[in-house]
């Protein structure tokens, strides 16, 4: 397996969807290629960083619709009741 092929299989590898035979080849490539090993670490860290950048459940829970928006939504619903 080349680095290019390893890169192509990265999504399936990190999500545990890789076929057992290909997975063994992938593992073998990582044992021989520290550069790809580092790349896999960074790929996983990137996924985690994306999740962490948006994960603020407190802020989400604290988000409240302003009263005028609530009124506008309820008015839209009332207007479109026949829809």
């Amino acid at each position, binding site marked *: 397996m*080349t680095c290019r092929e390893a890169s192509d299989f990265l999504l399936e590898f990190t999500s545990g969807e890789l076929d057992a035979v290909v997975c063994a080849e992938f593992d073998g490539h990582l044992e021989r290629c520290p550069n790809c090993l580092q*790349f896999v670490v960074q790929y996983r860290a990137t996924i985690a960083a994306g999740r962490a950048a948006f994960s603020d459940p407190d802020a989400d829970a604290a988000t409240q*619709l302003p009263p005028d928006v609530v009124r506008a939504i309820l008015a839209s*619903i009332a207007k479109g009741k026949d829809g």
Partner: protein
Amino acid sequence: MLPMTASDETALVAGIRRGDPEAFETLVRTYGGRLTAVARRILQDEDQAREAVQDAFVSAYRSRQQFQGNSTLATWLHRIVVNAALQRIRSARRRHEEPIEDLLPRFLPDGHHVDHFTAWTEPPDEQLSRQETAELVRAAIDRLPEAYRTVLLLRDIEELSGQETAELLHITPNAVKIRLHRARLALRTLIAPHFEGAPA
């Protein structure tokens, strides 16, 4: 806001299905805030997000008889607001985008990486307690071409399945997989310079 119990939700669903205005007002007040947060993540614009939430609640009202209770109200509404936000993206003027190919890893003819990857100073998600790091990652996601940014948001952030994402975007599950992988690779390229350079 207190979490809704199963019996609260059953009563609320019954009211919504009857078209009870009070039940709908409770629905809007209970879920409006968190749905706005979802729409904001996708649209990156407060006014657009509120309009998408408004569209979503009107759409939810119209399709209230289709809510079968197979999922929670929160899950049902989440999908509706994601769809409303995506419709706004589709009708928006396209912004200038850098080609995704420029952000993907480069390979030599023999299949080796062109670049040498050095260890990051600290996993970025561990640095994210710092507000500026979270902003940096969000800004990098915003730089992704829209077709890729949307898939990354729906799969990795909103945690929709590949099938759900494919249905919402009218593409195949395989296309979702390809776009997600490329989006992650491009995001790595964009954030890497900020996390490299650990002193030995």
